[in-house]
């Protein structure tokens, strides 16, 4: 094992606090994610970790546990990779501070990593996928199509112009009185519902390009709910299921149609191993997954969906980015300064409807 590099990854950019140990030959020796599920369901929403101090305490524990589960000490580690953004700034800062401390104390190189790159490169960790591949990143806070050309080369084809789908799932669950997180509870409610009961809009569906909008869909659910309440004085379980099913179907239609367009653009690059990879919690939705699977098989493109624990926030993906960057001699973010927003493709996207466009290359 001495010859193969080992990296410690640290991730604390949103609600989860995580640490992992990953080898350069794609073995995940440990991946610890501090579990907040109990807190989530008690509150009826995701509990943010605001206090940097609380994050830091959990991080110490997560790093210790990651090292011991991997059966290594800091002496066996070759580098430390840490999420430097984008995300909740308090969390990012505490992760970066801890990593800087560890790096200084141990003399190990420190690599500042973009959280989104972590998601984008996960298919290489799990499936050794070749560049360039198409990535649909669809989570609580993000929604975008990327062509991944290399560990530091991303071409953003489009994405949401307002809410991310994961956020729409959470908020629609709130509107319907379903539990949080919204993804699983909407999926369960939808199973017994009629997905054609409500004709919700598919914003931007037939518009050119790969931009999406989910905010108007949320408003449409709100209006339908309120119409039912004013008519019947409340919503029945059947209404709840029908609203959930119709909403889920609209989200799926949007993601599938925009994926179809994205695949067309991507195939123009004649990739060696054409593949659509997904990441993010929404990729766990059965209907979304089935829709994308069906689409990719029709278009003769491989469909790659990493296992759920590696689709959602984790530190193994951060450690893996460390390996990918070291392989190409990239130092990571320099200087390492936490960033709340950090787009993968810094070009300005064309703006819908405002008449403003033009990517500054």
């Amino acid at each position, binding site marked *: 094992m001495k010859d193969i590099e080992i990296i410690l990854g640290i991730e604390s950019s949103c609600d989860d606090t995580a640490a992992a140990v990953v080898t350069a030959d794609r073995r995940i020796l440990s991946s610890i994610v501090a579990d907040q599920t109990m807190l989530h369901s008690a509150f009826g929403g995701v509990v943010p970790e605001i206090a940097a101090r609380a994050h830091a305490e959990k991080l110490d524990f997560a790093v210790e546990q990651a090292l011991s589960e991997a059966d290594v000490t800091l002496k066996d580690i070759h580098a430390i990779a840490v999420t430097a953004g984008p995300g*909740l700034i308090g969390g990012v800062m505490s992760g970066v501070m801890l990593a800087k401390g560890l790096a200084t104390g141990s003399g190990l190189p420190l690599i500042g990593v973009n959280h989104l790159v972590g998601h984008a490169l996960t298919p290489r960790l799990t499936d050794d996928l070749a560049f360039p591949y198409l990535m649909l990143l669809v989570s609580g806070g993000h929604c975008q199509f990327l062509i991944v050309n290399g560990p530091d080369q991303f071409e953003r084809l489009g994405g949401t112009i307002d809410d991310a789908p994961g956020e729409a799932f959470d908020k629609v669950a709130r509107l319907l009185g379903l539990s949080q997180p919204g993804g699983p509870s909407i999926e369960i409610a939808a199973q017994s519902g009629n997905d054609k009961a409500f004709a919700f809009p598919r914003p931007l569906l037939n518009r050119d390009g790969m931009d999406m909008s989910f905010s108007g869909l949320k408003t449409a659910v709100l209006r339908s709910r309120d119409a039912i309440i004013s008519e019947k004085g409340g919503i029945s379980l059947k209404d709840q299921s029908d609203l959930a099913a119709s909403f889920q179907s609209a989200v799926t239609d949007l993601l599938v149609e925009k994926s179809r367009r994205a695949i067309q653009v991507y195939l123009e690059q004649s990739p060696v191993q054409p593949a659509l990879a997904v990441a993010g919690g929404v990729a766990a939705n059965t209907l979304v997954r089935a829709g994308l699977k069906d689409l990719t098989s029709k278009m003769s493109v491989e469909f790659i969906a990493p296992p759920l624990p590696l689709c959602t926030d984790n530190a193994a993906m951060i450690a893996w980015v460390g390996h990918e960057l070291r392989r190409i001699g990239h130092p990571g973010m320099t200087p390492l300064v936490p960033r709340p927003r950090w787009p993968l493709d810094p070009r300005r996207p064309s703006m819908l409807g405002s008449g403003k466009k033009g990517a500054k290359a």
Partner: protein
Amino acid sequence: MNSRATVTFDISQLEDTTKFAERLATRVSPGTCILLEGDLGSGKTHFARALIHSKLDELGLWEDVPSPTFTLVQTYVAGDLEIWHADLYRLQSVDELEELGLEDAFESAVTLIEWPDRLGPLVPDDALHLRFELSDDTRRLVCTGPQHLLDLLAGSTK
């Protein structure tokens, strides 16, 4: 305290909200606090996004304005002006506001706050309350705040 008043605007079209936000963008300065009230899907984030884009655009800048629901706060810099866009829905206690640094921002930055009921006693006296009301086919924006600010806004959407 300044005298306060209430004015109501019709914002039935999405563009009405955009135009209103763009107009308000020219009136804000450090210390302006705008509280965005209303149900989910009533247009609060749309308003904030339009105001931030407009303020950045004055300087030829553009930035993605993601929803702050997950990150709680997103900050933007437009020249000398700092803009805070916060969504307090996920906050559980007033103590957490201190961790976010919102109190300082109320004085030094333009603050756009969604779910401001979480602020409790910390609501700035001269804050502008924008209430997004949605009923049947109409949308209304009920503005309550300092008289001088509302005078400037009169006729914004028409």
